[in-house]
C-alpha cells in the first residue's frame, strides 16, 4: 500500500536514474543500536546488502545511529535515500513496510533530544541544505519484537525478515539505476 502510493508519487519525475549522463547518488542507510536486540535489524540488513551493492558506484551503503536532525544531516548531498530501521507499530514481528519519509507514519520518529525526520528535513531545506527531493527518501521499516533488552542477536521472527528486507531494498534501488 505504501509502496503503491509512493510509486504513484514518482510518476512523471524525469530525473530518476541519470542527469547529463552522470549517475545520481543514492544512500542506503541502516539505522539502529547494535546492542539493543531488534533495534539493530536495520544494521543487519545493510551489512547483508553491502557485498551485493559493491559494484554500484552510484550507491553508498552505510550505518548510522541517529534520527532527527542528525539523520537529515547525513542525507545531505544525495539524490535518493533508503533508510532501513526497526519500528514498533503493534504489527507482527518481522513484517516489513515501506513508506516515504515525508509520509504521515514517519512523523512519529521522535526523541526528546531531537525532532522528527520530516521536521528536520523541512528545517534543512530552510537552511539551504541540498537534500533528496520529497518522495526520494524511502523508509524500509521492519517490525521489531524487543527493542529494550541489551543483546546483539535479533529475535527469530525479526532475524528471518533480514533477507526479505534486503530484497526489498534491491528492488527499490532498480528504479534509481
Amino acid at each position, binding site marked *: 500500500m505504501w509502496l503503491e502510493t509512493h510509486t504513484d508519487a514518482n510518476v512523471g519525475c524525469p530525473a530518476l536514474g541519470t542527469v547529463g549522463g552522470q549517475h545520481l547518488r543514492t544512500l542506503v542507510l541502516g*539505522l*539502529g*543500536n*547494535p*546492542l*539493543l536486540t531488534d*533495534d539493530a535489524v536495520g544494521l543487519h540488513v545493510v551489512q547483508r546488502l553491502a557485498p551485493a551493492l559493491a559494484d554500484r558506484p552510484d550507491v553508498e551503503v552505510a550505518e*548510522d*545511529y*541517529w*534520527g*532527527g*536532525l*542528525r*539523520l537529515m*544531516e547525513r542525507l545531505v548531498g544525495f539524490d535518493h535515500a533508503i533508510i532501513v*530501521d*526497526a*519500528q*514498533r*507499530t*503493534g*504489527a507482527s514481528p518481522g513484517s516489513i513496510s515501506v513508506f516515504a519519509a515525508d509520509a504521515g*507514519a*514517519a*512523523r*512519529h*520518529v*521522535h*526523541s*526528546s*533530544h*531531537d*525532532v*522528527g525526520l520530516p*521536521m528536520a528535513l*523541512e*528545517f*534543512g531545506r*530552510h*537552511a*539551504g*541544505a541540498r537534500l533528496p527531493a520529497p518522495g526520494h527518501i524511502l*523508509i524500509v*521499516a521492519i517490525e*521489531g519484537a524487543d*527493542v*529494550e*533488552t*541489551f*543483546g546483539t542477536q535479533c529475535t527469530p521472527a525479526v532475524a528471518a525478515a533480514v533477507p526479505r528486507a534486503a530484497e526489498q531494498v534491491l528492488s527499490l534501488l532498480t528504479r534509481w539505476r
Partner: protein
Amino acid sequence: MTTQRISIDPITRLEGHGKIDIFLTPKGDVAEAYLQVPELRGFERFCVGRLAEDMPNLTARICGVCPEAHHIASAKALDALFHVDPPPTAKKLREMFYCIFFATDHTTHFYALGGPDFILGPDAPPEQRNILGVIQKVGMDIAGRVLKMRRDGHNLIEMIGGRKVHPNWALPGGVSRGINEEQRKEIEALGRDAIEFAQFSLNLFHEQVLGNRAYLQLITSEAYTHRTYNMGTVDGNNHVNFYDGLIRVVGPDGREHAKYPARDYREYVAEHVEPWSYLKFPFLKKIGWKGFVDGEDSGLYKATPLSRLNAADGMATPLAQKEYERMYDALGGKPVHHTLATHWARLIELLYATERWVELATDPEITGTEYRVLPTATPDEGVGCVEAPRGTLTHHYWSDERGVMTRVNLIVGTTNNYAPINLSIKEAARALIRRGTAVSEGLLNRIEMAFRAYDPCLGCATHYLPGQMPLTVVLRAPDGRVLKTIGR
C-alpha cells in the same frame, strides 16, 4: 463513570515512552504525580565477561544522545581500574573533545527542544511550538547558523575521536592519537565561530525571554521552584568543569554540603527504590530519603546545568563568568531554584564550553606527541566521572586480574534528577490542576515544561519508529480508578 481519551498528535519532545500518573484527592486536587519510564534491560549484565578496554566503545552505545559522555567517563574509569594517570596532552585533548561535544549538544537542546516554549510561548499550538516555529519567528538565517554549529561540532568530533557518532579514541592511560598543527588551527578557528554563536544565542535569549515580563514571571513562579540540594563538578577554584575535578554539593541555602572525589560517590549518594518504577532514585545519604519533597531535610538533589552553576563559585572563562553574574543578579542571587532557569544556565554553559574549547586549542601542549601511558598495573576497580549535559555521570567498574569485567554500576545523568523531575511534575500539576480545571493541551505542555527543562534522557534507543504516542498522562482518583487519559 466514563473514561475520556484525548489524543494530542503528533508533537513530542520526550525521549522514550514516558507515562505520567496524576493521582487526585477526593476533591479533585493533585495528590501525587509520577513519571514512569521504561527500563532498558540488562546493560550491566551485558558488560560482565567483556574486556575492560572494550567498555568505552560499548558504553558509548548505551545512548544515541550522549555517546561522547559515556565514552569519556568510561575511559576515566579505566584509568582508575588500571591505575594509570594519562599525560597532560591526553587530558587536554579529552577535555577539548568533550567541550566540543557539550557545545553541540546544548545547541540542539536550546533550539529544537527547550527554546520553542519560550520563543513561541508555552501556549502556542503544538504544531508551531517547535524548531520550525523558532526560525519562522526569529528569522530563517538562524537555521543555517544552527546547522553550521552542529556540523562543525560533529566534524571536529570525528576528526579528533576517529568516528562521527561513536568515538573509538579514548583508552586507559590516554587517547589513541593526537592532533597536528593543521588540525589544531582548524579546531581553533571553528571554536572562535562557536563562541560567537554562543553569544548570539544568549542575546537571543535575553531579547526573546528576558525582555518579556510574562516569561520572567513564569520562570520565577512557585510552580517551577524547588529548593533542593545541587550537585556539580568543580575545579581547584570551585569553578564549573565538565571533564574533571571534585564533586561538590551545596544545600538549598547555597552552603557547601560535601566536596569529594568521584571514587567516593557511594559514601555520599544512595539509591531509593519505589514499587512503581524500574529506575532508582538517588539521594544524599547523609540527609536521607524523605520522599518527593524539597527543603534542607530532604536528600533530593539536582544535577543539571543550573545545579552545576549553583554548586560552583563561578565560571573559569571570562565571557561565561559575566553571563553567570548577570543571571544571578537578575534572579535575585545564589542559589537559583527555578527549574525553568535551567535553560538560561544551559546557554551560559554553552558559552563556557566554546571558550574552554578555544582555550585548550591554543594550549601549547595540545599538539604534544605524548598522549598515552601504557598501563602496567593489575586492574581491579575504578570509578570514572564526568559532567554529562544532563547531569553527573558515573561509571564504576570491577574486573578480575586479566581485565575481564566482573561488575558494572552506572549512574547516568538523568537518573540523578529522577526524583526532582517527579517533584517538578507534581508541583506544576498541583499549581495548574485544581478542582474543576479542564485539562487542556496548553496545561499539559506547562506540566511537560517542568521536566523538559531537565532535558531528560529516559530511554536510549532513540531512533526506532514507534507507532504509538510516547507520552501518556493518566488522571486517577484516590483509589487508582482512571478518570482521564491524555495521550500524545
